[in-house]
Structure formats: structure tokens, C-alpha cells
């Protein structure tokens, strides 16, 4: 039983660790360039299908670009989007949540009102609109998602702060003459950070899926960048005859997100955090 209970953490660490390694080292190790087109070698099937060749283990796409090289760069793009979005949304959400939870009263009411407004807007339509208005680029996608995805950080850090703020050691720090600033930074944040780590994994998975959906809809990472969602969008016209053209990038995206979610679940069991709404 305990082996099964530890499985999410082990599996999640393995998948996420492998993805990070691929993202950092992969582009250097793959022999092909992800952008070089070769129209004479379009749709070479992956190695395990008839007609496949070891030169292109995952085949080539509709423009003859090596799928492995594009996948590897695609994983790097997804992780970059996930990390940036989580750092940005973590800063916004945690600041709001800790302020609301610590000060309470009307400050808390204002924070919760901002969270309600954020929840009420259809995130994907607003993200599409922002990317259309500003112009699509990797940076725009990362910033847009980061600026929209902070509500879970806010909700969880608020409730965790409320719990911690009523503890004796916070009262003791106040009596000892600590400023509010040093109480928040020195007493509260260190005691809620384990909740925030779990939220970070959940939000990272959501950010990666959201970015892939934006790219799929044509208003995310622009071509010729090999974003996993974009690879699926570009290949979908050919999927009826060659299903592997969408199966391979989709599976990569699915496993990447699954790994991050497993890591989050494992960490929650380990640290006792909560994932929130």
C-alpha cells in the first residue's frame, strides 16, 4: 500500500525531471534542426511504423521537418510558458491572498471581490483577445496567461494565511514588536509556502494546457515555433490518413501535464498542502 501511495511522487518526479532534462539538453542532442524543411521527405512515418527510418525516429511533418527535434523544442516551450506563468501568477495571487487573509475586514472583502471578477470572465476568450490585440509571440502568451491565472494562488494563500495568522507564534512576534512587514515575510510566508508549492504545480499544468489550446486556436505561440498545440493544429488536416501526426505531439503534451499533476499530488501527500478550488 505505501508503495502505491508513494507512486504519484516517484512517477511525477521521474516524468517532470525527464521533461526538464529534455528541455535543457534535448535541442543540443537531436541531430536535426527543428526548422529545416525538406519537401522530399514529407510525412516519413515514425520508426515503428512500416516505411519508417531510424534517421527520423518520430517521423517528419507536412513540411519534412524532423518531429523529434520539434517535440523536444516543444517541451522546452511548454515548460518555459508554465514556469513564467506560475512565477507571475504566484506573485500576483500570493500578494493579494496574503494581504486579504492577514488584514481581513474590508481589505479581505476587496480581495475576494477581485477574485470573483476574475472567475467571472471566460479566461480563454479574454486570452485570445489579448493575444490578438498585442500580437502573438511567446512572450505575449507567457505574460497573458500569468496575468490571468492567479486566482487559485489568491484563494489558497488567503485561507492558509487566515489559519496561520491566528497562531500563537504570530501573536508572540507581534508582542515582541515585529512590524507587519516582518510578520508577513518572516512568520506567515514560510508557514504557507508548502501550500503554494502544490498550487504552483496545479497551475503550471493548467497554464501549459491553456497555452496549447491558444496555439491550437491560432492565437498562441506563432509558427514556425514548434509549440505542441500548434503542431497538432498544423497536422490535423492530415490526421485521417496518418493519425500518428497528431497522436505523437498530443501524447507528449498529455504525458508532460500528467507528470506535473502527479508531482503535485505526491507533494501534497508529502507536505500536507491543499490544491484549492
Amino acid at each position, binding site marked *: 500500500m505505501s508503495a502505491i501511495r508513494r507512486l504519484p511522487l516517484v512517477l511525477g518526479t521521474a516524468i517532470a525531471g525527464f521533461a526538464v532534462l529534455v528541455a535543457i539538453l534535448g535541442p543540443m542532442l537531436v541531430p536535426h534542426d527543428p526548422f529545416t524543411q525538406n519537401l522530399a521527405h514529407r510525412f516519413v512515418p515514425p520508426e515503428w511504423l512500416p516505411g519508417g527510418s531510424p534517421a527520423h525516429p518520430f517521423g517528419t511533418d507536412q513540411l519534412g521537418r524532423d518531429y523529434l527535434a520539434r517535440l523536444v523544442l516543444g517541451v522546452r516551450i511548454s515548460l518555459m510558458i508554465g514556469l513564467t506563468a506560475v512565477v507571475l501568477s504566484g506573485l500576483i495571487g500570493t500578494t493579494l491572498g496574503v494581504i486579504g487573509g492577514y488584514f481581513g475586514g474590508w481589505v479581505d472583502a476587496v480581495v475576494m471581490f477581485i477574485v470573483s471578477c476574475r472567475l467571472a470572465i*471566460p479566461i480563454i476568450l479574454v486570452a485570445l483577445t489579448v493575444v490578438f490585440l498585442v500580437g502573438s509571440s511567446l512572450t505575449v502568451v507567457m505574460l497573458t496567461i500569468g496575468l490571468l491565472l492567479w486566482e487559485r494562488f489568491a484563494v489558497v494563500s488567503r485561507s492558509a494565511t487566515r489559519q496561520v495568522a491566528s497562531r500563537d507564534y504570530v501573536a508572540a512576534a507581534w508582542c515582541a514588536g515585529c512590524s507587519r512587514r516582518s510578520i508577513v515575510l518572516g512568520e506567515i510566508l514560510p508557514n504557507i509556502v508548502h501550500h503554494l508549492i502544490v498550487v504552483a504545480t496545479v497551475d503550471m499544468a493548467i497554464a501549459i494546457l491553456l497555452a496549447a489550446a491558444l496555439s491550437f486556436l491560432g492565437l498562441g505561440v506563432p509558427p514556425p515555433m514548434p509549440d505542441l498545440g500548434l503542431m*497538432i493544429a498544423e497536422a490535423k488536416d492530415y490526421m485521417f490518413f496518418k493519425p500518428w501526426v497528431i497522436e505523437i505531439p498530443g501524447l507528449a503534451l498529455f*504525458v508532460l501535464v500528467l507528470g506535473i499533476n502527479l508531482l503535485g499530488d505526491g507533494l501534497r501527500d508529502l507536505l500536507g498542502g491543499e490544491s484549492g478550488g
Partner: protein
Amino acid sequence: MLRFLLRSLLLGALVCSTVLVASFLLSRASGNLAINIAGPEASAEAIAKIQHELGLDRPLPVQFYDWAARAAHGDLGRSFLFHEKVSSLIATHFPVTFRLGVFAIVLALVVALPLGIAAALLEGTMFDIAIGAVALLGQAMPSFWLGLLLIIWFGIDLHWLPIAGVETWTGYILPSFVLAFVAIPVILRLTRSGMVDAMRADYVRTARAKGLSRASIVLKHALRNAAMPVVAVSAVQLGFILGGSVVVEVVFNIHGLGYLAWESIGKGDFPVVQAVVLLFSLIFVGLTVASDLVSALLDPRVRGA
């Protein structure tokens, strides 16, 4: 109860008006709406003419007041590109999306509730662990990819279901399933944890001690308490499903509200985008207010809070 109702409605109205202002500002943020409509090669006079016709040359607060006053009377303006009233565009596209959303949430509840209850009653067994794994897999599934895979499997390979459009009711099956997939893990986990807590509660022990049957304990005592957060989260999930239907509508080529918004965003037709965003927000707020009320009716503790 009345105070609770009023507070909940007031908060909802405040959220709506904030979203109203935000969506208006967003649509004007680019400042080149007229250039979008006239095309990049249009002369300065042509752009100025379009700006004047659409009232885009007036100060922002005036434009906003004008727009909001009309919107309050149900006039959402005209589409820049379709040359049709936005309200009639929405009226023709909304029913499809609404049906999709309702089918999806019903499907999600039908799948997630029994599985969640079973997992809670069999807590710690292999079945419980397997259900947890299914929820994890569902959370990681990119919905557009699942949609495409289902089109290949059920539409092309098996020829069972249509691969696009909703001309017949069978066209709703695959897209509703994909939309339900997003809500299933959330409802499943919440039902399971609610039931686990309820089965450990004192009132269930009392019911057991009274010698009530297991079915009556589970269905009457435990489920009624565990269902409260599920009602609330289902309303929220329906809101998310409607707002996120754009992906599924594009995959299955269904001309609903999400598809309309996506098309309009790509062409810079902002009166339509603004109206769709506003409508989804209104529906979301309405759903949360309704779920607050249902919770308050079911549970006196909520009213006092």
C-alpha cells in the same frame, strides 16, 4: 434569508458591472479598430470615415456610456463585419452552446457522482485508487486532442458518429463528452472527499447505532451532506464549460457562441466579442448566485455566515 439573498445579488451585480467596464476597455485598448475593419491599405480618409460612422472618434467615457445605456436595453450594437445586430447573432448561436453545456454537465454528474460515492465507500481499496488515477488522467487530457482522437476513432474508423456539426442530435454526443471530461475529475474528487468526511461524521455513527440500513445511511444521511459542495461546484463548472466551449466548437466545427467569438476575435469584430464575453460573465455570475441560494435553502448554516 432576505439579507443573504440581497447581499449575494448585490455582489453579483458589482462583479457584472466591473466585467462590463473591463471588457469595454479591453476592446478599445488597441486603438486601431477602424484600421482592422478598413484593412491595412485603406486611406486615412476611409479610416476616419469608419471611425466617425462607428462613433470611435468620440471620447472614451462617452462611447462607454452610450454602449452601456444601449446594452441595458438589450441593444448590443451591430457587428462590424456581419452587418447584423449583435443581439440577433447571439440569439442564433446561443442555443447550440447552451445545449452542449447542459448535456456536458449532466453527463459529468451521471459519471462522476456514482463513481465518487463508490470510491468513498471503498476508501483505500484498489477501486478507489483506480478511480483516483482516472481523475488524474482526465485532468491531464488536452480537450482539443481528445476531440480529434474521438473524431478519428468514432467518426472515421467506426463510422458511428458524425465528425462535425450538430445537424442531428448524434452530433452532440462527442463534443458533450469532451466538455464533460473537464468537469468529471473535479466533481469526482469533491464527491469522494465529501462522502469520506460524511461517513466519518457523528450523525452517520448515530444512524448506524440506530440500526438503519446501509442504503438509507449512505443515501439519506451522508449523501445529503456531501452533495452541498457538489451543487456549488457543478454550477461553477457549468460556467467554465460554457466559457471554454470555444475549443470544442472549433474542433467539431459547431457554430455556437464560442465559435462565433473565436471567428470575431480573429477578424477584430469587437462588438461581438465584447457581447459574448459579457454574456458568459453574466451567466457565470447568475449560476454562482443561484448555487449560493440553493446552498442557503438546503443548509441553514450558510445563511448565518
